[in-house]
């Protein structure tokens, strides 16, 4: 349906269609109404449309969230073999939209939009790597997640996953600028050094190539993918529920939030509602996970700059939260607690008591850390004024979460699009204006306090007893009692385990506030028991993409401090 035609669209999509009427490529774009208003555009028009969507006062889709490919080879009713799917957000209008760019099999190519949305650089590299899309005009189009000796494009449906590609030292791609080491600049001979991949300060395996002039970094490039475990490819061969343990291993510091984000996507596709108690338990444990994530981030960051004690104090919180998670589901790190339609098992009887105990103990440690850090001159010198990201830069680089909030943008998914019960709670979104490392520390400390506030209110309305799971047995395993003694339940049980949940064909982008920012899951179903395509929008991916630009002009030690406040979780970054 073209823009000119009259249609029965939802109000949001209709508004978008009207706005697009002013654009130069209006005749060649169409707006469809899916879970999000979806624009379909030809590859040639995409950069023009992107510029229009960003700059037009009626649109203002300024936050680039995600770009991913989809291979339609085994999907019915699709016109083209490939498509690129982009998700954008408008901070002023508080809206998400999707742009689909159909690409043909022979030449999957679409012009780059790195000049419009700097955040798209790494997303385009990823699509090039995994789908073989060409992005003419891209400044640095090399493989990102797979290594440089890899042959083929792993997420294409016709790629044989059993192949192994060996990587030898000589296959390592060294950027042109890094090869030449005797270039003279300023007083010192500049030199190129490698920080990482295995370096105590890189938090996971991340490789930073830096050209140094004395101690100042004049150019840098990051190289990731060392922890790439083919999450998205694995998801395509598993049932919807079986993806949950894999999702745990994305951001393994706050595994619970990943699980909640993933199952919410599937539940929305199915239209399943889970009981209040189940939602509240998820909320409480997600907020505890967020505290844990911030504890790890701040603790590790302070260790990097030489303050070991805080790390121990913050880890004691983490330890006690792990005890709570273990009492609920039996595992500490990779919890696998959520299921599509609810939880694996009801919480223990003393759940509320344990939570209240944690609400008592956590603030004490936070207060101790604040005493040690807030007015510490060394910490101030290392963190304040380093790694500065201005508001415009943060938006352009597609940052979300504490990174964006520390630069003064109060975008929090829990506030912008309240899910579960977040609109009922009384809590504040902490922001800071300086955008430096110290602001990020302050924002995270305050967020932990706000999380405690949310948990306290959630505990007040948590029903004492009641179901945590939906009673739709096409989605949730029937209770064991019924399975053992009742034939019909056993049949449902059997169908669910052997065939998986039948999710209606379609697509869905669902997003929640992860510990690092907007955690989005874009799922495509073809009606089978498992995902046809599952794309994660990892919140730390855009921050890491910007890292090589943030560190230029600072010293190596500033880069270490900055990397700490980005809160890079390699599992989520490399997937």
């Amino acid at each position: 349906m073209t823009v000119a035609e009259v249609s029965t669209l939802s109000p949001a999509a209709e508004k978008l269609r009207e706005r697009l009427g002013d654009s130069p490529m209006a005749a060649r774009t169409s707006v469809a109404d899916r879970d999000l208003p979806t624009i379909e555009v030809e590859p040639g028009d995409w950069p023009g449309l992107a510029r229009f969507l960003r700059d037009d006062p009626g649109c203002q889709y300024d936050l680039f969230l995600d770009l991913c490919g989809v291979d339609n080879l085994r999907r019915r009713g699709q016109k083209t073999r490939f498509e690129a799917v982009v998700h954008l957000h408008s901070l002023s209008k508080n809206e998400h939209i999707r742009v689909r760019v159909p690409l043909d099999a022979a030449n999957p190519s679409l012009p780059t939009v790195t000049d419009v949305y700097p955040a798209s650089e790494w997303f385009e590299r990823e699509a090039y790597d995994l789908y073989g899309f060409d992005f003419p005009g891209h400044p640095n189009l090399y493989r990102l997640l797979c290594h440089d000796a890899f042959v083929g494009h792993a997420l294409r449906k016709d790629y044989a996953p059993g192949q192994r590609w060996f990587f030898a030292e000589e296959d390592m791609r060294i950027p042109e600028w890094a090869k030449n080491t005797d270039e003279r600049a300023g007083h010192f001979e500049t030199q190129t050094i490698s920080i990482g991949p295995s370096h105590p300060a890189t938090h996971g395996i991340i490789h930073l190539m830096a050209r140094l002039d004395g101690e100042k970094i004049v150019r840098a490039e990051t190289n990731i993918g060392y922890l790439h475990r083919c999450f998205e490819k694995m998801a395509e061969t598993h049932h919807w529920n079986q993806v949950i343990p894999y999702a745990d291993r994305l951001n393994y510091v706050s595994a619970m939030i990943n699980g909640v984000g993933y199952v919410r996507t599937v539940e929305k596709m199915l239209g399943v509602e889970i009981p209040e108690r189940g939602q509240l338990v998820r909320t409480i444990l997600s907020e505890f996970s967020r505290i844990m994530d911030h504890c790890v981030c701040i603790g590790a960051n302070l260790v990097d700059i030489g303050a070991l004690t805080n790390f121990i104090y913050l880890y004691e919180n983490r330890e006690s939260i792990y005890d709570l998670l273990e009492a609920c589901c039996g595992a500490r790190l990779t919890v696998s607690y959520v299921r599509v339609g609810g939880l694996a098992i009801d919480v223990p009887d003393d759940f509320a008591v344990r939570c209240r105990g944690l609400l008592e103990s956590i603030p004490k440690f936070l207060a101790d850390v604040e005493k040690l850090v807030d007015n510490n001159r060394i910490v101030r010198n290392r963190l304040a004024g380093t790694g500065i990201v201005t508001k415009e830069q943060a938006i352009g680089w597609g940052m979300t979460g504490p990174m964006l909030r520390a630069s003064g943008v109060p975008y929090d998914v829990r506030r912008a699009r309240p899910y579960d019960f977040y609109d009922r709670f009384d809590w504040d979104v902490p922001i800071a204006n300086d955008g430096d490392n110290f602001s990020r520390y302050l924002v995270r400390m305050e967020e932990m306090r706000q999380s405690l506030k949310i948990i306290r209110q959630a505990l007040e309305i948590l029903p004492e007893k009641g179901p945590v799971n939906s009673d739709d047995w096409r989605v949730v395993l029937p209770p064991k009692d019924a399975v053992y003694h009742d034939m019909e339940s056993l049949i449902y049980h059997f169908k669910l385990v052997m065939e998986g949940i039948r999710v209606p064909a379609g697509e869905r982008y669902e997003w929640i506030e992860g510990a690092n920012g907007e955690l989005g899951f874009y799922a495509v179903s073809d009606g089978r028991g498992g995902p046809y395509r599952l794309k994660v929008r990892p919140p730390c991916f855009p921050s890491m993409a910007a890292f090589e630009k943030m560190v230029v002009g600072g010293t190596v030690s500033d880069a270490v401090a900055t990397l700490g406040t980005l809160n890079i979780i390699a599992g989520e970054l490399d997937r």
Partner: protein
Amino acid sequence: MSGVIDVSRRIPEKLTFLQKLYIPEILRGMAVTLRHLLRNLANMRGLPTILYPEQKRDYSGRFRGKHILKTREDGTMKCVACFMCQQACPAECITIVAGEHPKLAYEKYPVVFDIDMLRCVFCGFCVDACPKDAIWMTRNYEMVFFSREDAVFSIDRLRETPEEVARHGYGYRPYYPGDGTTPPTDASLLPVLPGSGERDRLREEGIPLPERDPGPGPLNAPSQAAKIVRSP
């Protein structure tokens, strides 16, 4: 719902002269750390760190550790080789070969039931999937192997033993005492169905029975290395 708070003004932007002097701040910091030290000295038992392996952490009754295969009252395994756990396993670490049980009431049993503990992610999906209450988990998390073959646990090491349960205790399982669910009826206590009996007795009576499939032999997964294709 509430507002937005600016935390950059929460603490003064500039340090005071005393704070810049280091020494008072160091003393203030020392007060915090010393308080922790003294409190921990007074309460050595409440320390968050433990002296593993002499001291073991007390995990909850839901801990997801090593699996056990439950047995019936007559000592046979509850597992009926329905392949549900093998299908539910996200790590694909369970291998089952089914055989026909001599006693007709049990019908099927696993000839081979292997769990590759190096592949296992201890998610508990197998316990959730089992319709016969045949696989549970224990709180045993100390599994040490010297080779990859060692890590593939067969029935011998998975079958429940009283010593193991006494030592580690049950972990993740489908029902807990007192939570309103009841275990399935023990099949060994069921009345013997008319016509059922021992396989051999039936054969003697001339009733045709299908030959038992010996299965594809020992089921240790062949090494991945053999399948590796070197790039041209």
